[in-house]
């Protein structure tokens, strides 16, 4: 039994939990964060798996970290340093490549090399996406009103929302509706003709979901990509110095500076409920910590099924959580490399760069998305319970951006891989994990033939591993799919999308609540503001 008395306990030291803790502490509350693992961050952690080589083990870039959080918590003073990740290059099967560069003229010329029509379409498409992202952005910062409720706060919220949509005008509203319902492949077909371009753009619509580029609903996720570009002015997009763990560390440091206590190796087993009120938590080691407010940063299944007994919850909520879709669909391969991989698309016959711009290509992302069919076939494998033989991969080499990630001349490579279904036929085994890793390296080898000879260490993470290590149910990187039926007032369940739970004093703040997804911190912040507004 711990003697200290707290105003609030945060279960789970993921980035959202830490954001909630920091905001509560900033408001003068006495807060403790209890993290099961020896380090904070959840899926935003940096670990030195091989001496001298640092891996952003799971989440590897930062795109949507809310500017107001950076500002309110003064994160740069606590180590937040976002470095530019400027380009995306897609190697093509014919040895050529398709690149998006930081300079608009260079990008237009590059696309025009493949399709002059698409080069023009790209700037107009960008303009539409800008408007769409502007339309959606206010929603991200808003506590979702419940359309089925007549409570004044909900009505006010709905009115605000209705007013916002009206202000878009008919044309943009209709475009938004299309974007919300179509598949990314269909949507992009309306704009572009060059298939690898469509494939690379649609890839951002499938990340972390169990959808293919031809699945309806995938177009919406395209928008998330552009959201980052609106805040592009703010430049919250890129690679964190020291890996994503350093983002978590900076939030933890800010929380501590406001007076919060952050405890690691503190495995919360359950939330203690007395007379319908949360009164504290019990740890796996038998300790108990009391507080009138308990906030779960864990995903909805952990929050409502594992931490609390279902008897405290209404049946409808239990049912909704049971139907909440996790379906982890991606894996991660992290490599420690003795040298840089030699991508064949970079070089001309004489071993020079094919274009001087390519000298910087490896500082950006490499997207293995040569065609829409390629991605859809990768999805086909997963639909029937297999990992993709030829997966979509998003590759970055953090050591080229932050030399501190690997010893001089050595490198680390982060490969996000889709699809790797959590529900694999026969289940995940050590042998299946290695076979999955082999499929990734086999695919990569087609584009970078020296890859095998330079690998010093290979870390392969399947959705089962992600679940085991981070606790994310079914290894879903967003704490539940970012699918339309699980967004806004439906995230994680109807009537319980406002960070509250049916148990008084028990709150949720993870990415399984609105708006969720990515290292964004918005869920954690909105939850904290609700808690501060709603008292206990």
């Amino acid at each position, binding site marked *: 039994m711990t003697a200290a008395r707290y105003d609030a306990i945060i279960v789970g030291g993921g980035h959202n939990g830490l954001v909630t803790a920091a905001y509560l502490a900033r408001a003068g509350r006495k807060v403790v964060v209890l993290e099961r693992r020896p380090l904070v961050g959840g899926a935003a952690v940096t670990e030195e798996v091989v001496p001298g080589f640092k891996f952003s083990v799971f989440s590897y870039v930062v795109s949507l970290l809310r500017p107001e959080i950076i500002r309110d918590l003064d994160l740069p003073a606590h180590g937040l340093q976002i470095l530019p990740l400027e380009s995306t290059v897609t190697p093509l099967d014919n040895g050529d490549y398709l690149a998006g560069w930081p*300079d608009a003229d260079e990008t237009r010329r590059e696309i025009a090399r493949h399709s002059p029509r698409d080069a023009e379409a790209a700037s107009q498409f960008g303009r539409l996406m800008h408007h769409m992202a502007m339309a959606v952005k206010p929603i991200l910062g808003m506590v979702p009103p419940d359309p089925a409720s007549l409570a004044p706060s909900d009505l006010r919220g709905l009115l605000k929302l209705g007013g916002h949509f009206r202000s878009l005008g008919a044309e943009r509203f209709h475009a938004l509706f299309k974007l919300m319902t179509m598949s990314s492949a269909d949507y992009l077909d309306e704009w572009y003709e060059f298939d690898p371009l469509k494939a690379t753009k649609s890839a951002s619509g499938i990340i972390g979901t169990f959808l293919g580029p031809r699945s309806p609903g995938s177009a919406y996720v395209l928008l998330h990509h552009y959201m980052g570009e609106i805040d592009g002015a703010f430049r919250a997009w890129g690679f964190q110095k020291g890996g994503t763990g350093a983002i978590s560390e900076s939030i933890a440091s800010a929380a501590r500076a406001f007076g919060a206590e952050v405890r690691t190796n503190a495995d919360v087993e359950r939330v203690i409920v007395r007379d319908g009120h949360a009164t504290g938590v019990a740890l796996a080691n038998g300790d108990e910590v009391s507080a009138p407010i308990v906030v779960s940063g864990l995903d909805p299944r952990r929050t409502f099924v594992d931490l609390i007994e279902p008897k405290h919850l209404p049946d409808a909520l239990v049912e909704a959580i049971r139907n909440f879709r996790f379906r982890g669909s991606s894996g991660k391969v992290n490599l420690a490399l003795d040298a840089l991989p030699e991508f064949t698309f970079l070089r001309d016959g004489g071993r020079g760069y094919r274009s001087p711009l390519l000298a910087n290509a490896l500082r950006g992302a490499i997207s293995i998305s040569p065609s829409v069919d390629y991605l859809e076939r990768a999805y086909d494998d997963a639909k029937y319970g297999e990992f993709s033989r030829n997966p979509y991969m998003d590759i970055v080499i953090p050591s080229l951006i932050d030399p501190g990630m690997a010893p001089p001349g050595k490198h680390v490579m982060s490969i996000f891989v889709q699809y790797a279904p959590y529900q694999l036929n026969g289940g995940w085994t050590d042998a299946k994990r290695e076979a999955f890793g082999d499929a990734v390296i086999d695919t990569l080898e087609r584009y970078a033939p020296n890859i095998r000879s330079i690998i010093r260490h290979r870390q392969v993470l399947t959705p089962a591993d992600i679940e085991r290590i981070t606790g994310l149910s079914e290894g879903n990187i967003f704490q539940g799919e970012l699918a339309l039926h699980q967004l806004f007032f439906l995230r994680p369940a109807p009537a319980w999308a406002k960070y509250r739970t049916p148990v008084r004093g028990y709150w949720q703040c993870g990415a399984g609540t609105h708006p969720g997804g990515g290292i964004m911190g918005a869920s954690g912040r909105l939850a904290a503001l609700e808690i501060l507004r709603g008292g206990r």
Partner: protein
Amino acid sequence: MLKTTPFHERTAPLVRAQTWRRWAGFQVASAYDPHPEREYAAVRNAAALFDVSPLYKYRIGGPDAARLLDRMVTRDVTRCAVGQVLYTPWCDADGKVIDDGTISRLDERTFRLTSAEPNVRWLWMNAVGLDVTIDEISARTAALALQGPLSRTILQHLTPADLSQLRYFRLVHTAIRDIPVTISRTGYTGDLGYELWVDAERAVPVWDALMACGSGYGITPAGIWALDIARIEAGLVMLDVDYYSAHHALIEDQKSFPDEINLAWTVNLDKGPHNGRRALRRARAGRQAWSFVGIEVDWESMERLYAARGLPPHLPNVAWRTSAPVYRNGEQIGYATSGCWSPLLKRSLALAHLKAPHFAAGTPVQIEVTVEHRRERADAVVRALPFYDPARKRA
């Protein structure tokens, strides 16, 4: 035709978008990439390599060298040890700043002065009756600045000198690839960094050695755009941008006392006689009329101004150098002379001259911004300089 620096053959092929600018009659890179993001990031994350050869450089020797400089500048040069570097402004007889730069004591009787503008005439005017030699070595001496958290690591691979023993604002005479080089722990970024001084004829191999050794440490050639953002974060004043030289000012209002451009710390009124001492003493006896401070623009206020026009805030990716009025309670209380979006701090920063009594840190002010062709006023607050001051700079 502008002159080129000794490193031109190396820098020119790297300037992808022909973004050159002039500096003291030389042609130098604004940026090597079309945009300075990556180059700026190198300053704060790895190591950025700047060609700063256009600086004016003078070698001052002879038995009275220290006496000449001490008579000219506001800091106490007689107490400058061999191997030490002083940053200092110098003033006219009215105590108004003419220029600022560094004084390096290379040996007992030899100094190197750097400046933003030509000062040879001023040096000779001050040298009357003194036994000194004054050589302009600007063209003969090439200069590089290697700035950033990994600058020491890179340099240490190349020089036998123990850089862990080289303190802030000290220098060492050493060699890189057998080429004599003076390394000073100085710079214009407010970060850990060094400046390298080398004979112009032998400069290119030093660049090559740094680039080869630095490749594993993220060394990045960087231009003036990146430097400008870093120096604003560091709160470092710039001649002809933030203040005018008393030698060029057309009206009295264009001149500044050192105290008025945040250089009070460089003024030693207790040392021997020097230019402007009497005027500076008199000025100090009265109330300080102006101060040079930081301004932080309130993000939400900017966001509101843009949202009113249906736009997300636009942030420039290079620093601005235009004058922007600063207001308090509707009345103009000063003006900002340069500013930038800080990619590191995620804040809109400006350097400003504010009148008494409005320059205390924390004072709420407003700054003029142009939003979609309209002049607006954004909320802002006065901040003490520097905005960014990492411990590694001095450690």
